[in-house]
């Protein structure tokens, strides 16, 4: 495990950069536990102060220190992405494995449901859900709904890997040596599938955070829980651009972009790690 990590860090520039970005982001999120302020309290510090030694990222028109707000926002945003990715991975893994392994009619039924969820545009549905639930649409409800809608694409990927694994020689060997099907799937096949699950985990986090930011910016989420999108929403509400308080936009935008790039780099480096051909190509070059 440690050797794999060291090789990745040495031979894979994407992994090294992505990993460092994510360490910084996680560090900032962890700083929220030492914040001197409560996240929802306002009018604690001087309003609209530009970045300075005292307020590193400045303060906003609601009298909040943007740095400490950002620590909470990043923590909540990451936690949101993590929960969505975790739950939807469980769904896509279960559906992909069953569909790929059992095949036949089960596969056909599952895959038409799967394709249906790929096609349906989620955004109007999420907006409609907010519209109906309003204040009941908490952070956690949104995460559950998005996990319930966001598994389809990766279930298809896992299924296709599963189909190719099923036809390999070692599967037959396992069957003839008397292993039960659940054991073959969990012990023999899962090690091949897990790296893909990890890589899609990052992609799914990006997807869900992107949607959450978008919904929050429009004010369609629980904007009292500080998230990155929520910060931009409040900046818009106070027309921060017009009054020239650029730092209120700049820091949330910068850090959410860094988060996206970090997660994305980790995911593509994971993909390359899975494909041994590109891994060899890379090691040969450096």
């Amino acid at each position, binding site marked *: 495990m440690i050797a794999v990590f060291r090789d990745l860090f040495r031979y894979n520039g994407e992994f090294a950069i992505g990993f460092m970005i994510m360490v910084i982001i996680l560090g900032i999120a962890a700083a929220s536990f030492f914040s001197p302020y409560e996240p929802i309290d306002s009018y604690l510090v001087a309003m609209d102060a530009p970045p300075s030694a005292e307020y590193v990222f400045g303060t906003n028109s609601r009298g909040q220190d943007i740095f400490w707000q950002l620590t909470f926002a990043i923590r909540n945003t990451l936690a949101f992405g993590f929960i969505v990715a975790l739950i939807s991975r469980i769904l896509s893994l279960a559906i992909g494995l069953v569909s790929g392994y059992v095949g036949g009619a089960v596969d056909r039924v599952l895959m*038409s449901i799967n394709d249906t969820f*790929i096609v*349906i*545009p989620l955004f109007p*549905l999420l907006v409609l859900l*907010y519209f109906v639930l309003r204040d009941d649409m908490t952070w956690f409800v949104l995460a559950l709904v998005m996990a319930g809608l966001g598994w389809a694409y990766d279930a298809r990927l896992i299924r296709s890997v599963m189909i190719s694994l099923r036809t390999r020689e070692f599967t037959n060997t396992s069957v003839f040596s008397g292993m039960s099907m659940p054991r073959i799937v969990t012990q023999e096949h899962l090690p091949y599938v897990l790296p893909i699950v990890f890589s899609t985990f990052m992609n799914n986090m990006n997807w869900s955070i*992107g949607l959450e930011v978008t919904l929050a910016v429009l004010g369609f989420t629980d904007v009292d829980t500080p998230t990155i999108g929520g910060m931009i929403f409040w900046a818009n509400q106070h027309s921060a651009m017009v009054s020239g308080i650029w730092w209120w936009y700049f820091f949330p935008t910068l850090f959410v972009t860094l988060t996206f790039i970090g997660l994305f780099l980790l995911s593509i480096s994971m993909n390359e790690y899975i494909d041994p051909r590109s891994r060899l190509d890379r090691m040969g070059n450096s």
Partner: protein
Amino acid sequence: MRSYVIYVGKRVLQFALVVFVGISITFLITHLTPIDPVEHAVAQVSTFGFSSPESIELLRQSLRELYGVGDNLWEEYLVFWQRLATLDFGPSLSAFPTPVSELIGRAIPWTIGLLTVSTILSWFIGNIIGGLAGYYSRNRVLRIIGMIMMGLHPVPYYIVAFVLLIAFTFVLPILPSSGGYEMNMTPGWTLKFIGSVLLHSILPSFSLILVGVGSWFMGMRALVSNIVTDDYVTYASLAGVPERRLVTSYVMRNAFLPQITGLAMSIGAIFNGAVITEQVFGYPGIGRLLVEAVHAADYSLVLGITSIAIIAVSAAVFIIDIIYPLIDPRVQVTQ
């Protein structure tokens, strides 16, 4: 020909399934509500003072049928489908008494125009540059372009659109910041009007292309770099096929095919992006209409847009699906 008919038949079934599931989810969501949306909406309208009793009754009746509070759930479900089939969502609350279908009808050409142009452009640009980058994998310029595209790809639409908006209307004010055409201009097929529409569509479509191009680029580059090592390519190149022909007709042509399937699968996500883009640039399409409808608490409009969006997106996917076998003859044999 017969196999093509079977193929289309299967696609029609899948299309019907998508619409069925999507609309059913929509129906279920509106029935989760703890408050009575009908009385809530009626009260809101009557406080604004358009209190002709007949129109209020008309509104109440259409809302009752759309959200059907209190009646038998199964009957409500059927009535909901009936309304949808006749595209009758009742009058809009925020633009009372304009029918919802008219508001949507006015907005939808903008969205379809913007989406079609920017999707096709980003698909072609991404695939062609991606294909070249996969074939000439040591080319420095293509590598740098690749890095920029991949850097932009994970950034969400909102951020890209917002940065572009600030850059081109605030810092360097050369492009219009909002609207579909210049204000106080009468729409028509005049040269001036079309020019204004094009000018206003530059920023929204540019932001959609900027974000969209990356995923096509990466997909195509990966596909091409796999195909290049295939035996038939090696054979063709040893047999002296000119390089230009090798790249276009031997390598890229084959790699384009899975990308068409990819296009069908990502239409929904592209639509999500367009909603935001329209909101940021104040573009008069159905994305902005949706956001405005939510802010104005316009129940029928929100429901109408959601249903129409689901049908429109699945129809777009259906169209790509049935065109596909005409481009890839292998589909007819296998499916």
